[in-house]
């Protein structure tokens, strides 16, 4: 379970998030939406401990990640899987090495088990046979799928997706959405998806959190989001740039 209490974050005197509070329950599939630059990725990176909030607390499995040692945070992160906006694959390593890196460190698998795990993970994202390719040989969508394979190889409890479908064609977007749903349905996983793609929100999430001007504008089910009469939510859903809150 993830609890965020009165979290605030600023950059260079510009307030990005102001007293944000919400919780994510085990097994939730929550989408965090909002305009570009509104603080969605900042919120995500704060939850996983890559950024420290200026104020407030973030609890993951009842551990306050702002007050724990780096070693404990690393241990906690072994429960996390993260898919980055542009894949964030290690350029100097092959696809196979990208996936095996964490497996070698965090598990006791021997070489053949790691090799099997790489094959299975790549198969799950329809990327089998690409073990020896290097990231520069892959397209944007392929990089994201390898990023998903790298994340799911460790069987994380929490999956974080940062703009998983941004910049992809509709077919690839659908394919990534299906992968997110498939992995979520397989186990005891909590998924947090940062996106501004309405198709992804509709296809993947069962709960939505909308950020606006540093605050939570909407927090409810996906069905409620699309029925919302809040003018700010409606303007965002309809892509109405003329509306100013």
């Amino acid at each position, binding site marked *: 379970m993830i609890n965020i209490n009165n979290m605030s974050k600023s950059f260079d005197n510009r307030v990005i998030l102001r007293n944000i509070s919400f919780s994510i329950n085990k097994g939730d599939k929550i989408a965090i939406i909002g305009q570009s630059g509104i603080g969605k990725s900042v919120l995500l990176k704060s939850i996983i401990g890559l950024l420290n909030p200026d104020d407030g607390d973030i609890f993951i499995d009842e551990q306050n990640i702002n007050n724990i040692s*780096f070693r404990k945070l690393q241990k906690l992160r072994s429960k996390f899987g993260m898919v980055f906006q*542009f894949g964030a694959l290690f350029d100097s390593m092959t696809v196979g090495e990208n996936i095996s890196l964490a497996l070698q460190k965090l598990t006791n698998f021997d070489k053949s088990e790691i090799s099997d795990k790489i094959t299975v993970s790549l198969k799950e994202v329809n990327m089998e046979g690409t073990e020896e390719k290097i990231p520069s040989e892959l397209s944007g969508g392929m990089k994201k799928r390898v990023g998903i394979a790298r994340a799911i190889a460790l069987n994380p409890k929490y999956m974080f997706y940062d703009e998983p479908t941004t910049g992809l064609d509709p077919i690839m977007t659908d394919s990534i959405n299906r992968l997110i749903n498939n992995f979520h349905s397989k186990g005891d996983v909590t998924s947090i998806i940062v996106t501004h793609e309405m198709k992804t929100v509709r296809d993947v999430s069962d709960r939505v959190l909308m950020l606006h001007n540093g605050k939570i504008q909407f927090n409810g089910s996906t069905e409620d989001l699309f029925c919302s009469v809040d003018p700010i939510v409606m303007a965002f859903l309809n892509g109405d740039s003329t509306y100013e809150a």
Partner: protein
Amino acid sequence: MKEIILYPIHSVVSLFEHIGRYCDLMIKTLRSFRTWHLYLGFLPEHMIKLGISTIPIVIVTGLFSGMVTTVQTAYQLESGFIPDSYVGGIVGVTVLMELSPMITALVMTGRVGASIAAEIGTMRVSEQIDALEILSFDPVSFLILPRIISGAIMFPVMIVIADLFGILGGYLAATISLGITPFNYIYGLRDWFMPWNAIFGIIKAFYFGIAITSIACYYGFYTSGGAEGVGKSTTQTVVASCITVVILDYLLAAILL
């Protein structure tokens, strides 16, 4: 007008900020020694990148710096009252104590320092460092420690190679273009040689190696602002490393000689 007056103050504050953050990163690097065994496997790769691949540049700069020193030394001693063997002696001492370590360090700043800053900087802006953290790796141990250790090991090796080729360059220039006999050059070289001179050069190389790699890692690690930020970090690395090398050169000479 106000900006012009405040510019030096901002520059000094910014310098101290950099020094503070650099020290903080180095403390984290020292702390990460506890997990060095996890990253030992990456050391040979960095040593090859940092050392073996730069040997041709070191050979060329070493060779020509030895040659030019010989020609200029001979020009200074043209009076005819000073024996030719002095050329070999002066070249030997200059190459071992100053020329090889200094020129090699400056060349390595451009070749190795810039490359490290660009590589780590690109990893930062493309979120690869964040990905390392999420995969439970300590990016300081993973990225910085192996590079600094490689620098500390490989720079002295590079200096020994530069020493050899500097002296060889001097020999070639002396015998081919200046008409100094091989005997006189080698006699002077041996007559003036003191082991401490060579050791002093190697000690300097060790510190230069640590300084250049750590400064490059620092600027790379704190890169921000996309491709432009990577370019900025690379430039800052070269400038800061060159200044540090010159300052260290003086300090080490003042302390050790």
